């Protein structure tokens, strides 16, 4: 078969299949029962903020640079999909936590990153919305679902007696790597001398 024709089949068959799959993902009869972000709101100081405004603020303050949302993002800080549930569905608790941060664990007080209290409530509305998403059961019974009080665990100092596992790991992996390198280079040199 012609090479280009083979490539075109490889491209077009799955690309065309992606169209019905994408429609299926969002067409309401099949899609998961996710809430409408414009209807998920949080009230603060006689103002109402919805999750759409919150999503924009969430992006702008780069929350995904440390945290994950639906498991995507950086792995420096806990997942935020169900943080609203972990914060006892308390808007004020979550918004105030954002503003003051947890400097001992690496989270800056977001007010130092120019966040104002209205933005904090907007993001709270967004996190209220992500908590209602139908994520096919994820994160399940893992700790992200029951991390509890955000201040429950303080950062501990590292236990020196744990180091031996890592030292063994380093020795094992590197002896493997070095033996591969030496075997490879030696074989190469022999071939060069032989030829």
């Amino acid at each position: 078969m012609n090479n280009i024709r083979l490539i075109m089949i490889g491209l077009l068959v799955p690309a065309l299949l992606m169209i019905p799959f994408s429609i299926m993902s969002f067409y309401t009869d099949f899609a998961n029962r996710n809430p409408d972000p414009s209807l998920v709101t949080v009230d603060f100081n006689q103002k109402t903020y919805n999750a759409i405004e919150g999503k924009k603020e969430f992006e702008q303050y780069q929350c995904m640079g440390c945290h994950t949302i639906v498991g995507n993002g950086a792995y420096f800080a806990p997942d935020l999909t169900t943080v609203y549930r972990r914060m006892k569905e308390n808007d004020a608790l979550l918004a105030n936590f954002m503003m003051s941060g947890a400097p001992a664990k690496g989270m800056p007080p977001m007010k130092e990153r120019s966040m104002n209290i209205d933005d904090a409530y907007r993001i709270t509305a967004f996190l209220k919305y992500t908590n209602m998403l139908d994520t096919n059961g994820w994160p399940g019974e893992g700790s992200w679902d029951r991390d509890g009080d955000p201040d429950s665990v303080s950062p501990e100092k590292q236990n020196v007696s744990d180091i031996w596992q890592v030292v063994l790991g380093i020795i094992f992996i590197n002896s493997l790597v070095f033996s591969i390198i030496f075997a490879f280079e030696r074989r190469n040199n022999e071939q060069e001398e032989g030829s």
Partner: protein
Amino acid sequence: MSEYPSRIKTRKYFITAVLLFVVQMLIGIVMSVDVLSRDRSTTPLPFDILKALHLNLMVLWLLLGFVGGLYYLLPVETGRDIKHPKLIDIQFWLLLLIGIGIIISEIFFTGRNWWLVEGREYVEAGRLWDILLTAGLLTVVYNVIATMLESRNKLSSPILVLAAGTVGSVLMYVPGEIWFDNIVAAEYFRWWVVHYWVEASFELIAAGVIALILLAMTDARREIIEKYLAIEVALILLTGIIGQGHHYYWIGTPDSWLFLGGLFSALEPVPLFLMVWSAYKDLKENHKPILNIVVLYMIAGATLGNFMGAGIWGFIHTLPQINFYTHGTQITSSHAHFATPGTYLLLVLGISYLAIPDLTGRMNFSQYRGKIGFWLLVIGFLNIIFALLIAGVIQVYQQRVEGLSFMSVQNTLLPYFEWRLIGGLIAFAGGLLIAYDLILISITKVGSKMNK
């Protein structure tokens, strides 16, 4: 050489790409210190900004390397010079300007302006930079297509695949930039950028470049290389396009994706293995002496890194039953630190080592530094990969199965993050050595030794 005068313009693309890579590694090292200390006073910038720069610099130098590589390889295959040589310079400065713009807006405008910083993983660059980048890359596409349309030779499939990969990476940048109110749709299309870059467009570029380099360096028959390339590319697209589903397990999309994503992404290692096998076969049956050993190292490393990092490391957590536990843990981090440098870094370095000695006429450069640099990168990255993999397994068990809290698990992982830092420092040494070597090769006066 002299028949394609525009080729010399690509030299700055490669040098800049390698220098940006060194900066990216430096940022990675600062980040790994941040993970250990969790203290803002030990690092110059907050973690989220460092992370955004770490990813965006990578995107930038990958694009620079690929665009430079395309401009370097295109004239020989088409038998004519690039149609608009001036655009090569303009595009370079535009890409560099966008890069500087992204860095400045990350450092000074995070949280202040959505047009300058969007803060979504991999596409942190604000809307302004997205538009400029797309416009700049569209001119690259125009220049490539204009050159190919006036080709003097019959276009071979490797160069078509390479060009298709470039066009695809521009096209696939657009869906991720559309605004959706809904996080599910936003994540759905954000993955089009990330996944269709690394597992379709960039993979096409990789396959095309590897085929072209093998064609140039070995005496393997052209028809065989082209046939293998076609099968590989068809399989990459066949598995990769619907293999996208492995990103749609837990983002709020229907559970039919668990089946589709699991099935197709489990097949993704097959074409990657085929790439290793065909390259191995070509090199084994080769009788032509290979002068530029460093390129051979980089290309062989790229095929193996692609198979191991993207194929095997991807496969270990791609099935939904496993991904339910491993999603969003250090396992993903281990996979990313194997697949991206293992494939695309080595590929860009391979093209650089092919192009720069050729452009400056220093074909007899000392290959000692390149080899040592390559092995330092391999040792460093394998240490990072295994440290993160073991950390990931511990994290999955303690946090997702036993249910310990995030922070207490992070404390358990500290020794492994120290191991990762050691690996990072070794890899950084390798990167510095390679950058130094490439700059040394490139500063020879152009054309001085060419006609001897």
